[in-house]
């Protein structure tokens, strides 16, 4: 932006070819039209395309609605409702809240402002890993209320850069912590097209957003140099991606996790044992996956699926070495056996 004394351009205003002249505070100001630079994430594209539309729609509001927005904006001034202290007009507030909502997929425009200001908490976490194969925050507590986590991240910068948050883009607008974990690995790769590079410095911002109102919390800012091949202390799980894709896969969906307290298994399993005439469903696990736990037995509830009339069962769940295979099996108890069903529940694990 170029500011010039009024002698040359006093009273001159208007736009021509991307240059805008305006007169403000005794000075004429020439400004060039700004174009977004760098990466545009899907979330940002949504926001940019929505911004003009949202901004224009403010004009269509009634006088009462304008007044309500102005009133709320007065109270918003100086409040940490957008992560920064700022004076806001009613128009500013309208655009901010509605564009934030657009990020989170809230299609409908807020024409009347939220009833009051909402103070959104700051994101907390216990630990953070940044490597070429993992970007993970752990120990992120669930917030009170329906909030989503927005993650912004820069591409790799040189080690000497001390502040690169201005280069960050939204890589994930709507994350929900998975039992304290916020894993940004896939989101980063999807947006920036490559994995983090060891030795380069990355800048990350995290903040909560309330989709219903569009209010956001104060961002936390983190920077770190990417390490090579982190081997984090992983959660003890077995999931569908762990199943060997062989011709004896009768478990279609596997979601098992273990917790301490005389190890407790929690699980949701979907099976389809069509063509396998034994009253059980099983799959095989690679050696590396099977090595995560010793052999065990546990017990879950379950039922056949709707068309087979919800027949209730309990299942003996076993993970063991059977011949050359590492077998994960759910054996039906109760009856009669239907080929398709689900097993679910929480139970301690027992010795075989």
């Amino acid at each position, binding site marked *: 932006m170029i500011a010039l004394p009024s002698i040359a351009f006093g009273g001159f205003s208007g736009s021509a070819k991307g240059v805008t002249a305006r007169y403000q505070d005794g000075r004429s100001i020439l400004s060039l039209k700004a174009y977004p630079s760098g990466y545009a994430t899907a979330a940002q594209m949504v926001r940019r395309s929505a911004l003009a539309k949202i901004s224009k729609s403010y004009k269509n509001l009634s006088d009462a609605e304008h007044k309500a927005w102005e009133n709320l904006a007065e109270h918003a001034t100086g409040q940490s409702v957008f992560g920064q202290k700022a004076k806001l007009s009613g128009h500013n507030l309208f655009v901010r809240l509605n564009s934030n909502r657009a990020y989170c997929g809230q299609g409908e425009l807020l024409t009347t402002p939220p009833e009051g200001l909402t103070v959104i908490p700051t994101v907390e976490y216990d630990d953070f890993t940044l490597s070429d194969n993992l970007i993970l925050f752990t120990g992120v507590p669930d917030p009170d209320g329906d909030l989503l986590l927005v993650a912004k991240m820069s591409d790799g910068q040189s080690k000497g850069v001390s502040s690169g948050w201005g280069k960050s883009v939204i890589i994930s607008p709507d994350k929900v912590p998975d039992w304290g974990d916020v894993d940004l690995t896939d989101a980063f790769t999807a947006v920036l097209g490559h994995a983090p590079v060891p030795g380069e410095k990355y800048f990350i911002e995290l903040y909560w957003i309330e989709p219903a109102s569009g209010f956001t919390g104060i961002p936390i800012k983190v920077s770190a140099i990417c390490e090579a091949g982190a081997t984090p202390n992983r959660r003890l799980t077995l999931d569908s991606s762990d199943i060997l894709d062989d011709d004896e896969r009768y478990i279609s969906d596997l979601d098992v996790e273990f*917790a301490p307290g005389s*190890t*407790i298994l929690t699980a949701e399993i979907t099976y389809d044992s069509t063509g396998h005439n034994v009253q059980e469903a099983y799959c095989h696990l690679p050696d590396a996956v099977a090595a995560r736990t010793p052999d065990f037995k546990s017990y879950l509830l379950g039922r056949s699926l709707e068309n087979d009339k*919800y027949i*209730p069962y309990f299942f003996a769940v076993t993970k063991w070495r059977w011949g050359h295979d590492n077998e994960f099996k759910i054996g039906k*108890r109760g009856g*009669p056996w239907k080929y398709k069903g689900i097993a679910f*529940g*929480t139970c301690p694990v027992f010795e075989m």
Partner: protein
Amino acid sequence: MFKSTGNNFGGPEITFKDYQGEHEIVLNAVFDYDSTNEAYRNARQLEIYVPALRFNKSAVAGCFFAAEGQYGPIGTTVKTWIKNKNTIVIEKLTAWDNLTNHRIYICTMYGLRGFRGFAFERLKAAGINLQMSDSIGYPRDQVYYVTPDWVFLNFSLGSPSIGANDKICFLSNYNGFPDDIDALLPYVSGYFDYRNPGTNVHPVRFKDSQILITDLPKQMGSGTGWDSLFYAFIVRDRDNTPDVPGRCLWQAKDLIYDRYVRIRSVRMELSPFPAVVYAEMESSLSNKTTMTYEVEAVPDKMAGFKAFFLGTYTGGKCLTIQLVELQLVRENGKDKFTTSSGTGLKNLIFQLFDTSVAMPVNA
């Protein structure tokens, strides 16, 4: 025990028996509701509002649903989870909405996720040997695990014989089930009604160390392969109130030293000043002089102590006095309870109820 504060399906106030540990919550409750009421019809899932639970949320667990059909209750298993500290959710299935009276049995363990770096410990199920009236089918699976606070029991039986319909059937354990359980629980009998989905989910009473099965439906179908099953986490009725107000109470059951040795029950009340401890205890046979047990759920305010008690030796035919030293040591977050024979025979098999002076051990 606690009561619900509300729900979103027009149900009644619900009384829960509970055990709320660091890593597991066990809840027992049975309640009925009317499926024709508007609140139920509008509910996407059944939500029960409760006073603050120990967990903020839980992983998915399971419970039982039954609707009252023409020939008896019929239903299936449904998912349940803790949504937040004040809300328990139960999956809503609409396949029985043509039947008015619905019932939920919560006999459920709720667990957590998201842990790292812990030792994988497998439990050893307790010995069980079901004895039953001859009308009930042959047992296929029997798993039994007992803690001082809750019991896990599941078994599957062959389909019940027709003769079971007219009898009061019972199931018990040769080794004895706990006598501090009184619960209404679901028994999936294996009977079915072809006009409705699911199978018979029949109420049974677990009381006085046995499971009573009465009034099995007479007009439902049965057949080969329609086995019955029982699966429940059951909260024990522990009285945690000290006999003397102001004392600190610790009690435990079935502390196991090795295969044959156990303390069947122990109840201790410690008065901090003057330092007096009251103890009730029953121990099985041991050939060791001293045995130490790692124990749990000792109240924080109970200090470590040691004290001598007189008990009755129950291993012989004559009355013999046994001097026993009991010691509770609390160090590094672990609590150890030690019994030692003071005089006389080494075989510690005794009953005691005595009051003694408590001496410090953790000083």
